[in-house]
């Protein structure tokens, strides 16, 4: 009796995945999956909803990869002088690397077909956000990066505890199993996932507070905002669907 329940719930029939291309995963808010990409047991997928998010993340990653840093011009009041702030080459390289890594992590989080992988990619985004913000050599910006780092570290606790509770209460982490089954994920696990993602996605608050959106961090700072927005949207989809 119990085994049949688990077979229906934990193991999606393989012909659903490989038999017909038209009988894909039906998710809660966005319809059928368009595409899947298996990595062992972890099968990533895109649906119309996540495909839009993916294209958005891809566009901004390309923009971050090809754009040159913004050079702030300060005008001296009462005179004709103005001077341009120079961005050191190594800071530029580092921020560009972090922005691209952040974009890749965002795309991974959007495609994730597994709750634990989603939380891993969210933690990845948090780390790259710290890198982007901390690269600017300025005392109050570094203070903000430190505060955000603390928050991101606290946030990993509810994030991973949430994923662990999903596994403990349903027996599976795969969204292929969770989205279609009647197994209820407890409200507590959903709340933990939500507050975990909030901590990791809090970076734009600190960015805005430190006023570095148009300072020597631009345009790589954009990735902080894009990744937080997209990971929030993906988290909402997961919490509604499971």
């Amino acid at each position, binding site marked *: 009796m119990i085994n049949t329940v688990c077979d229906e719930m*934990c*193991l999606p029939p393989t012909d659903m995945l490989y038999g017909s291309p038209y009988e894909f995963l039906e998710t809660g808010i966005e319809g059928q999956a368009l595409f899947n990409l298996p990595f*062992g*047991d972890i099968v990533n997928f895109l649906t119309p909803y996540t495909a839009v998010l993916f294209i958005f993340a891809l566009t901004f990653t390309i923009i971050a990869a090809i754009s040159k840093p913004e050079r702030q011009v300060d005008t001296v009041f009462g005179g004709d002088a103005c001077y341009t702030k120079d961005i050191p080459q190594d800071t530029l390289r*580092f921020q560009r690397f*972090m922005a691209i890594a952040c974009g890749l992590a965002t795309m991974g989080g959007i495609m994730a077909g597994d709750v634990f*992988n989603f939380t891993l*990619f969210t933690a990845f985004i948090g780390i790259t956000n710290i890198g982007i913000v901390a690269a600017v050599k300025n005392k109050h910006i570094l203070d903000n990066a430190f505060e955000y780092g603390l928050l991101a570290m606290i946030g990993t606790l509810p994030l991973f505890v949430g994923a662990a509770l999903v596994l403990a209460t349903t027996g599976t*982490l795969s969204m292929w199993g969770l989205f279609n089954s009647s197994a209820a994920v407890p409200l507590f696990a959903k709340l933990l996932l939500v507050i975990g993602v909030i901590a990791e996605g809090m970076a734009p608050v600190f960015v805005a507070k430190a006023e570095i959106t148009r300072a020597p961090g631009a345009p790589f700072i954009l990735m902080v905002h894009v990744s937080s927005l997209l990971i929030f949207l993906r988290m909402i989809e997961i919490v509604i669907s499971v």
Partner: protein
Amino acid sequence: MTIIRKVSRILQNHNNLTAVYALVVIIVAAIGLISVAVGDITFEKNQLYPKTINPDSPLNPYDRGGEPFALADIKAQYPDNSPNLGYITGYLSPLAILLTKISPHLGTTIVAHPGGILDEILYSTRGLDTIVETSILFVAFTTAMFLYRRDEE
């Protein structure tokens, strides 16, 4: 002072955000404790990756059983993706074999040293996890190196 003004006075200082967040975590943890007490959260015994714990094994609690390089029965979520699953259940380095013979209490030490146990269920069925975890470490070390070496020139 209205309540909104009080709340916004606290939230406008970003140095308070960590404390506010910690408070939210405490509230959610309290909800969790209540829901455990009510019986809302129950352990699902039919786990996707089943595991038996053998307290007598020197590799406890990491022993998944089976002879290395012999076929073992491992339950895969998507068997089509892992055709070679179950052929290598674990590999112990010579040092790890020595440690298992010395004491039955070194399981964690054996797993923690490099090359101790290759856990097939991790490397074969959840391969993307290991890639993402090492990527996170790589990026974290890159940030640390950049910040540490920035002032050297």
